[in-house]
């Protein structure tokens, strides 16, 4: 509950290294993640979400989990890992954790794409 009441890392990053936005195919909710990456390390991360309580909480949790990680490590984070970190989610809410994990992966993809096109 704490991650819903006091979500960490809400907001935007102006000149983000990568931005990922996904719509949840199950419920139609939306989530966006901003990454600030330096030397392959996620130095800062912010999110915005139009989603349920579980979406907010998992988003907050994901951002906490990836901060300071390499992008390889961040790519390993699955929705299950997020749910576990929150001490579990009810079955009907498991799809909500996808939102955060998917948005993270999209943001990394965006970063990689930008890197490649930039070089």
């Amino acid at each position, binding site marked *: 509950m704490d991650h819903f009441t006091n979500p960490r890392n*809400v907001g935007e990053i102006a000149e983000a290294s990568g931005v990922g936005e996904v719509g949840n195919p199950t419920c139609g909710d939306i989530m966006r993640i901003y990454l600030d990456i330096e030397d392959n390390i996620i130095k800062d991360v912010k999110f915005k979400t139009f989603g349920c309580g579980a979406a907010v909480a998992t988003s907050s949790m994901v951002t906490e989990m990836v901060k300071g990680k390499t992008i390889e490590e961040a790519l390993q984070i699955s929705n299950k890992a997020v749910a576990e970190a929150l001490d579990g989610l009810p079955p009907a809410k498991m799809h909500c954790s996808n939102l955060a994990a998917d948005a993270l992966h999209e943001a990394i993809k965006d970063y990689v794409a930008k890197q490649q096109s930039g070089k």
Partner: protein
Amino acid sequence: MRRVYLDNSATTPVDPEVAELILTYYTTKYGNPSSIHSFGREAKKALEDARQQVADFIGAKSAQIVFTSGGTEADNMAVLGTAYANKHKGNHIITSAIEHHAILDTCLYLEKQGFKLTILPVDEDGLLHVEDVEKALTPETILVSVMHANNEVGTVQPIAEIGKLLKGKGIVFHTDAVQSLGKIPVNVDDLGVDLLTASAHKIYGPKGVGCLYIRKGTRIEALVHGGGQERKRRSGTENTPGIIGFGKACELAGQRLEADAAHLKNLRELMIKGIMETIPDVKLNGHPTERIPNNVNVSIRYVEGESLLLSLDMNGIAASSGSACTSGSLDPSHVLLAMGICHEIAHGSLRFSLGRANTVEDIDYVLEKLPGIVERLRAMSPLYDNERGCNSCTLKK
């Protein structure tokens, strides 16, 4: 923390007087009304008195009331019982897009069994048009079921006019009056209905009790078979204490109908005005005038409904998004979608349903808390800043 219950369309507390009465029939007057000894006769008498109280409240005769386990069962009985009893006459059923799932899902079940189903649209205020009923009629039509007041947006449907249209056509006309009962006058003759559903727990009576009014001469097949209770229309040992509570709740609701309505309307207007004045980008859902006095349904743009509910709940405020039954589900309200409101904005809708016990202080408390909650969630919303989002719906920035 202050606790403010604003989910009276989901369920109401049982009136203390009603609860006291029920208790008596649990512990001392506990006979089975089918038994012929004094315990049984005492229960039977109370059961029949309760039937009279319910009948009186809706302008019916007591023999026309069949008690059920709630509104859902009564709705099922109306739809399935009519369809099965009249399948030799025709196989076409008409209903509306904004019915409670107890009607909609039952109609869809019949459709799978080969019945033909017409689901009528509503306008952006959630109102059904009588002409649409007229146009949908076929010689095969055996049942029209349209709810009296909608549980989500509170819109009151033109039941009496549909009743007039159907009069003498030999088509069974059912209305689900679960949400209108106790809020506006409900009279089976004025409405011109053959079947009417009511539920006790929405009018300060117990959960698990309801009834179907069946006009004399209307054929209905029983759904539950067995001991032949309720004149063979609904078998099973009668929930005497619950039914007696339902009867009492009807009596009280009848006495207080006008006072309750005035009180609710006052709070409702206070609340709508307060929300509109303090929060930008809000739309009132439902009909501006044709609505039950206790319903406030608003779409709060850019924020998601469940997050709103949870935030309110953390402040002790109980509300709902969509109907209680579906608030555990992920789909946006079928009622709002039917009214042409887009998925995203439907997702940000909130229902406050007021009750007899609510006070001006309750409303003030909500108006004190809600703006901050919305602001916080909007700050978190990816839709708020970039003005992205919905172009297809009536709510534009």
